[in-house]
């Protein structure tokens, strides 16, 4: 059966983040809280951030969703911790481009996240991967208001 194509989507690093998510939970010390859902499929994410002087000091997520959305949330929180908010938002934009199959800026060091490039070939699953990033972007925008 179609294992080869599945392997392009479910890379081992994705499955690792899905099964042992990083930064899972709720931040007690958060000053930014975002709830977002994907109305077409029921995925939900509860993201808590601690932002100080435009630096994302800490990030945690809770949620219900498929392997792609939860692994993406795990990787996203890992990436933005310690980054300034502008870089975090730029990363969200670069991630969107990646999902659209566009080439992304070489200076962007995505690490594990590059494993999600395969999602671009599964149009029905792109929104799963982008949900946590959209939540983060919305949270940072609300904090800077």
């Amino acid at each position, binding site marked *: *059966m*179609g*294992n080869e194509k599945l392997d392009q989507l*479910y890379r081992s690093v994705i499955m690792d983040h899905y099964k042992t998510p990083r930064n899972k939970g709720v931040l007690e010390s958060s000053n930014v809280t975002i709830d977002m859902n994907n109305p077409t499929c*029921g*995925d939900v994410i509860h993201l808590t951030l601690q932002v100080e002087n435009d630096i994302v000091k800490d990030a945690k997520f809770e949620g*219900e*969703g498929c*392997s792609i959305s939860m692994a993406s949330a795990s990787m996203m929180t890992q990436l933005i911790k310690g980054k300034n908010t502008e870089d975090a938002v730029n990363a969200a934009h670069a991630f969107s481009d990646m999902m659209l199959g566009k080439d992304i800026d070489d200076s962007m060091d995505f690490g594990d996240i590059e494993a999600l490039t395969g999602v671009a070939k599964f149009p*029905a699953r792109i929104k799963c991967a982008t949900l946590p990033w959209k939540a983060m972007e919305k949270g940072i925008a609300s904090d800077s208001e």
Partner: protein
Amino acid sequence: MLNKDIRNDFPILDQEVNGYPLVYLDSAATSQKPRQVIEALSNYYQNDNANVHRGVHTLGNRATEGYEGARETVRKFLNASSTEEIVFTRGTTTALNLIAQSYGRANIGEGDEILITYMEHHSNIIPWQQLAKATGAVLKYIDLEEDGTLSLEKVSDAMTDRTKIVSIMYVSNVLGTMNPIKEITEIAHAHNAIMVVDAAQAAPHLKLDVQDLDCDFLAFSGHKLCGPTGIGALYGKKALLNEMEPVEFGGEMIDFVGLYDSSWKELPWKFEGGTPIIAGAIGMAAAIDYIESIGLDNIEKHEHELVAYAMEQMKTVEGLEIYGPRDSSKRAGIVTFNLDGVHPHDLATVLDMNGVAVRAGHHCCQPLMKWLDVSATARASFYLYNTKEDVDRLVEGLRMAKEYFQ
């Protein structure tokens, strides 16, 4: 079981998806279309296309005959007593909105109660929420039994002197439950409430008889019963429809137009503002002719056998939970499930990679998902063209998904 040659009527089934022969198990979302329906649509556009109810010319007459002939086909299909009681709509959603906006606004007041259940589709929830908000009425939910069925006792208990509308789906698009509509209608009428039936999932699979059910309104969609998208019908008792105001105004629905006031056509046309869905109605009539040529009783029997087989086979997959009635004879051709350790979206992707199409998500039933205490589920739904081999391919895919995600 129905003859497998039926599959030859559906050209779309003869293809490979991701390298495997297509197994289409998403008919509860929308059914596939037989050649007979595709040809009726193409014949209308190639030979008869014109606007209806106005042309003196020959094509105008043919289009009108086709469109009004389709109304007669729907009347017979529902066993309504008159074509005046058949309003063409865009589908079930539009029909239910029409009832809420027209009948509802005129007859519901503050403190009145509208009764629905936890298993309803969003299209049979939100029109009533909006009506309740606009009028100060109260929207109440009847609780379900543990196996996802509806007890008449709980329906009776939920009724009060203030209950004005009871609106319930005939067949659940998630649980497959077939609700005792005739008995519920009796209860509603005993309390002077009107009975609205969402028959979107029933019309493709069961013989409907609005006179026997005695319901006041009934809505269904063409695309779920082998017809085109964008067409459906509302049945309403003539006395009620006569009293109701249209909700869409413009061409086609008027009798006389003055500068500051206008009057409406007779039933059913006063509810069909604008150029109607002519090709859609003709296509839906062809679909009704098609499923009636196979026989609704035969289709229902076929689906019961498939569901019984599917439930038996699916139970052999470790960690698989099926929602809704355990007794397969109590459900229509729908099996909704979850596989332990595999999210339904991942499951649907794995199955798709093996050519098997299922639905994953909340199925437009968020309150029911909450009642089931799940965020999402996977659903396999069957129709007249499905076979036991399709079930085998599904089960094979489930085992593979289980293994893959271990």
